[in-house]
Structures are given as C-alpha cells and as structure tokens.
C-alpha cells in the first residue's frame, strides 16, 4: 500500500488498518476478544501482554482515529469522560490550575467541579471565546486550557489558533480541545495548534449510537506515553468489541458528515424563517455572530444546532414531546435525529443561575440532525408546531 499520507480522509478511514498479518485475508479486522496474551518467552511479547494495556482491535481503531486527526498515535477510552479523566490524572497533579470553557458539556463540568476538584485541582470556568479573558485567567500554576468548540449546547466558538498561541507563549501550558461536535474532518484542532484533541467517539465517530467511547490524539510522543501508562494503570481502555463497532462506524464518517452538514443547513434555515422560532444558533447562518470564525477554522458547519421558540418553558417541553420523528434522547451525532432539552438533561447539574448566565435557558432546544430526509424532518417540526400552538403556528 502507498504511504498513508498520500490518501484523503475518506480513504484513510477505510484503509488505515489494513496492514494486518492475516492468514485468512478477512476484509474486516478481527475482534481480539481476549484479556491476555501468550508470551513468547518471559517478558517477551509482540507488543500485547494484557488487554488493559493494549489490544490489537483497539489499536486498529486508534490508527483510524490517528489518521483522521493527522497524527501517528491516538488512544481510545471507555468513554469521553474516561478520556478526560485519564488526561487530567496523567498530566496534572494536586495544586495545578485548569482553565475551562464556561459553556461546556455538563458531564465535563461535573467531572471538574465534583470529582477532580476533590483532588487538589484548581479550575476556572472562563468565556474562552474571549481571548483576553483567558489570558487574564492564567495563573503561574496553570497547566491546561480545556476548551470545547463549538460548545455544547449553545454552539459558542473559541478561536483554537489564538488559544494555542496564547498557551504556547507561556511555559508548560497545554491546550486541549474537545472536538466532539465537528470531528477532525471538519475542524483539525492539532493543525490549528492544539496540543491534544479529544473526542467522545460515542457521537460522530461511531455514528450509530452503538457504543460509548472516547479518544485522545496528540503529536507529542511524551504525552502519549504518559497517557498510555496512566490508562493502563487506572484501566480506562476501550473494549475490543466496542472498538470494532466504532471501527465499522468511522468508515462512513466522511459520507455521514457531508449529509449531516447539508441536512442541518437546510433545517436551520427553515427554522430561522418560521414565525414561532425566536432564535437559531447554527454557525452556518448569517445571523450567527461568530460565522467568520467558523469559516476560518472549520471546514463545515456540522450537524448540531440549538434554537428557542417564542414560547415559555412548558410549551417548549410540549413542543419536544409532540415531535414524532426527532427522538428525545441524550447523546448526539448519530444517524438518528436526536433532540434534547439541555436544562433538564445534559446540563441539569448546573444551577439555574449559571445556566441563565451561559445562555442555556429553559427554552433552549438542542438538535442533532440525523440522516433522515430533511423533508420528513421538516414535516415533523411543522406538525409539532400545529399540535402545540394550533393552526396559527
């Protein structure tokens, strides 16, 4: 096979792990559903001693993710949260300070506020879309800037390159970006200067709602080796079967993303023109205040959006409940269109005051646009307006 770097992403996701010494010529990578490996002699293995440390099927997924990240190594974890936990336990110690995006997935903020904080980690929640605010928040003990862009659920953007330049103008500060909403195919954070790219692979990488998983990628070999050791020590590696499912999922990632982006753009425009809709947050709309930044650092606007109705909280919930095709469930990035109410679901652990300050109102609806026909989805949104607001809707 020619050198991998000659290939486009849509080729790489399919062929990144074909270099397998197979005796069967199986077109698919086998599932190494094993806990341990026979050693050739004491202390001598072919690189696999125990599946908590490394597993060939997990490694195949890691190669595919590394290929789309544009680096040589990635690591996969039991969940996105396990990836962030391993990142923090691996690179930080008690007394270190972390700058976090203020608008961020609720599970990430819960991890910092309610778990890692007990172990002597300091953190500040900052509006990372404001580079000056980030600069002012840096302390002598700041070791990590962790941002989410686009942020969950308001789609607020942070300038990855500007943040990387700021982090690297200081000593010993790493920039990690949770790139779950876009994936490296729509926003390559490592190319933009981030030190670490993190993904919840549960979302677009798997794409089918089949697995829970997470990944970390970096160009920094020392960081990878440290994270590998800590992953083995705290036992957060992804399972072989789930890796295999995600490996199947990632093969259609480029095709799925193209459709997600196209459908989301169509639906965002339809919603924005609907008289019952007060506001749509989607980076591809001209009304989106950071559209220029999206065009600068993204290669597409993604499949995620949020919107608010001219309605109160109760009517908002009734509207979600009236939808028949868009399914109310946590998670995002799958072939199914999923709709959630962040204030009572993904961001329920935040206080109402914090939610209000961050723009996560009780009227905010988060939408992950799937691969159903946009015509059918629009018809569904339309019938729900009529069901809740009557014919005048």
């Amino acid at each position, binding site marked *: 096979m020619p050198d991998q770097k000659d290939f486009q992403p849509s080729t790489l996701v399919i062929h990144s792990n074909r270099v397998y010494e197979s005796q069967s010529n199986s077109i698919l990578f086998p599932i190494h*559903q*094993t*806990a*341990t490996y*026979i*050693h050739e*002699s*004491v*202390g001598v293995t072919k690189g696999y*001693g*125990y*599946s*908590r440390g490394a597993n060939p099927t997990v490694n195949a997924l890691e190669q595919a993710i590394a290929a789309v990240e544009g680096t040589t190594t990635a690591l996969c*974890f*039991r*969940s*996105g*949260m*396990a990836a962030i*936990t391993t990142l923090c*336990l691996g690179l*930080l*110690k*008690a007394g270190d300070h972390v700058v976090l995006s203020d608008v961020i997935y609720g*599970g990430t903020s819960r*991890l910092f506020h*309610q*778990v890692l904080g*007990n*172990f*002597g*980690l300091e953190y500040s929640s900052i509006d990372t879309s404001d580079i000056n605010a980030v600069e002012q928040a840096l302390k002598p003990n700041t070791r990590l800037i962790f941002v989410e862009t686009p942020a969950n659920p308001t789609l607020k953007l942070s300038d990855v390159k500007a943040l990387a330049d700021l982090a690297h103008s200081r000593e010993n500060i790493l920039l990690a970006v949770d790139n779950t909403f876009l994936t490296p195919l729509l926003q390559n954070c490592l190319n933009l200067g981030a030190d670490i790219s993190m993904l919840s692979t549960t979302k677009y990488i798997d794409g089918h*709602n*089949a*697995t*829970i998983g997470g990944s970390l990628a970096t160009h920094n070999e020392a960081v990878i080796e440290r994270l590998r050791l*800590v992953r*083995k*020590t*705290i*036992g*957060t*590696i992804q*399972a072989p*079967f789930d890796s295999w*499912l995600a490996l199947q999922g990632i093969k259609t990632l480029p095709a799925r993303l193209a459709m997600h982006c196209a459908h989301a753009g169509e639906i965002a425009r339809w919603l924005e023109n609907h008289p019952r809709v007060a506001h749509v947050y989607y980076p591809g709309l001209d009304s989106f205040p950071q559209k220029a930044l999206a065009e600068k650092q993204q290669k597409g606007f993604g499949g995620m959006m949020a919107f608010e109705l001219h309605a109160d909280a109760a009517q908002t*919930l009734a*509207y*979600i409940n009236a939808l028949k095709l868009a*399914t*109310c*469930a*946590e*998670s995002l990035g*799958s072939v199914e269109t*999923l709709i*959630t*109410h962040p204030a*009572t*679901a993904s961001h329920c652990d935040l206080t109402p005051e914090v939610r209000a300050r961050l723009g996560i109102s009780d009227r905010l609806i988060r939408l992950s646009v799937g691969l159903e026909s946009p015509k059918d989805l629009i018809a569904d949104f339309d019938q729900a307006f009529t069901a809740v607001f009557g014919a005048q809707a």
Partner: protein
Amino acid sequence: MKFATRLVHFAASPGDPNRPMATPIYQTATFEQTAADGFGPYDYSRSGNPTRRVLEDQVAALEGGCRGLAFSSGMAAITSVARLLQSGDEILADWDLYGGTTRLFAKVLNRVGITVRYVDAANAAALEEAISPATRLIFVESPTNPMLRVLDLAAIAAVAAQHKILFCVDNSTMSPYLQNPLALGADIVMHSATKFLCGHSDVTAGMIVVKDEALAQEIHFLQNAEGNALAPFDSFLLLRGLKTLKLRMDAQQANATQIAKFLAQHPKVNAVYYPGLPGHPGYAVQQRQARGAGAVIGFTAGSAARAKQIAEQAKLFKIAVSFGSVNSTISIPYAMSHASVPAEQRAARGIPEDLLRLSIGVEDAQDLIDDLAAQLN
C-alpha cells in the same frame, strides 16, 4: 438456594416480553426519554445499561451485597474506590498486592495528594497501631498476590469498624463462591472480574459490591462522572462465564490441590505457597473464613534462571499474566505481573526472583503434573 443453583437461576432478562434465557445485549449508547424532561430507568449507557445491570445485580447477590457495579477493568474499580478519598487522605494497605494496584498507588494517586502506607495486615495489632487520623481506607487482598498469604479478614474488619475506616477487600483470588468478605465485615469487595468470575480470558472487567446503599450511590456517581463502566457486550460475556463459576472452580481447585501436593513433595522445589496445604501458615484462617483455597499456587524454583527455564519449557502452562481462566498459565511475578512495582519497594517486599505463579485450569490433572514433572526433572 445453594450456590450452584443461584448461579443459573436469576432474573436474566427482567421485563423482556420475549423471556429469553440469556440476557439480551443492549448495545446502545442512549435511550429514548419518556418525555422532554422525563427519563426512564435508563438514559445513557455510561450511567446505566440493562445488560450491565443484570450482571451487577447477579454479582451483588452472589457476594451478599446491596448493589454491584461493573467496571471496564479491576484497576478502574480500584481507582473508583480510591476516588472516595480526597487530597490529604491516606490508604493503609497490606504490603503484598497485585503490581498494578501498587503502581496505581505509587504513580497516580500520589500526584493527587493521596498517600499510601504499607503494613503487614496479617498482624491486626500492628495494623491498628499504624492507623493515623488521615487514614480513610484499609485495602487488602486475601489470599494475597503473589505470595498467597492469608489475612484474617474479620480481625481487620473489626479494627476498621472500631476506627470508622472503610475496609475494601480484593477478592479476585477467591471469587464469591469461596469467600464473601462483606459477610466477614468488609465494607467493599472488589474483583478483577477478568479472573475467576469470567473464567475464559475473554473479558477485561472489574466489579465492586457494597452493602451500604449510600456508599453504592457515591461509587455510582463516580463511575458515571468518570465514565469507566463495563461495556454491554463484555457484560454479556461475563454473565455467560459466571454461570459455570462453581463447575470451573471445583475442577480447578481439585487440580490445584493435587498439583500443590505434587510440588510440595518434589525434591527440586524449594517452597510451595498454597493455602490449601496444612503446612501453610494461613491454613487455619483460610479454613475458617473461606470455603476452599482456590487455584493459584506459588512455588520457588531455586534460581531466577531455573524459574525462567521452567516457564519457557512448559508445554501446557502458557506464559501469560492474569489468572483464573480455564487455561493453565505460568508466570514469574518478579518479571511480569509485579514488574510495575517500584524497584525499591519490590526489594523491600521480597518477592522472590525465582517465584513461579501457577494458575491452574480445567485440563486433566495428570497432564498438568506430567508437564511440570518433565520441566522440574
């Protein structure tokens, strides 16, 4: 119901209209909500999954606890137990522990301000004396890995209870069939479920069982927050393996007893460590607190080179880390499972360089003895 019956008669598919005998694999990341602000029993598989829940309930029942929690590995389970502590807290641990646990304590927990002190927990009085105001957790294995020392769990539990310190027992070498630490007074029992619970070397997993609902909720909170719960397919495999736990353990233990006796009388074997031999210093305590001695045996071969030679020339005993599987395995703890113990600590612990650890499988006992005899002679 007796143990063998309980292993196969449990609610394998609660609520499933098709009433399958085997638990369905809910290979899903998320669950449809009942309403925009309403959730059913499951909302996201990181927090809870029906396949995993059946496994958790079954292991909790077998260990006599109120709640079980399944993790992506035994180390993930121990990490979550350690998360119950905070910076400045201290763990008191028996000195003989799995190398991965020692590595967690020395290389990860130390960085977040948790200290670990090692004591000889076989001496309950010495253990009690070592308790400091910062001690929050006592952590032991019994029989220990790799020296197969036996600790008096009820005596340690009494000390822990008197000082209101959490007591966690790693029960991996025994399984709930042979030993129930919660009944002996422990607060938390954990397993590397990769070992006897699974029994087939096909899953990496960990289990925690507790007898206090508030503690269960605290650990579940951490499991969800850190995202290290066991995957649905692995939960299914573990449920499948668990059904034959008694069959396997009975066969493995019978084999182990014969092999331990064979080794004990062999002139080229220096010492045999197996708590089922009457000469083992922990024999009486083991008889009292457990229902068998398990299927892990240690013996010393005289020199590191000789140990290496025996391991590498054995035919049926495969060189591999892990234990508790249907396959017999052989390992040199000093160079393998305990290589991750920091060097100075490894020296202090005195893990013999010529120690071989055998995990006895379900092969024919005579075949296994013949294999060992050929290498020893």
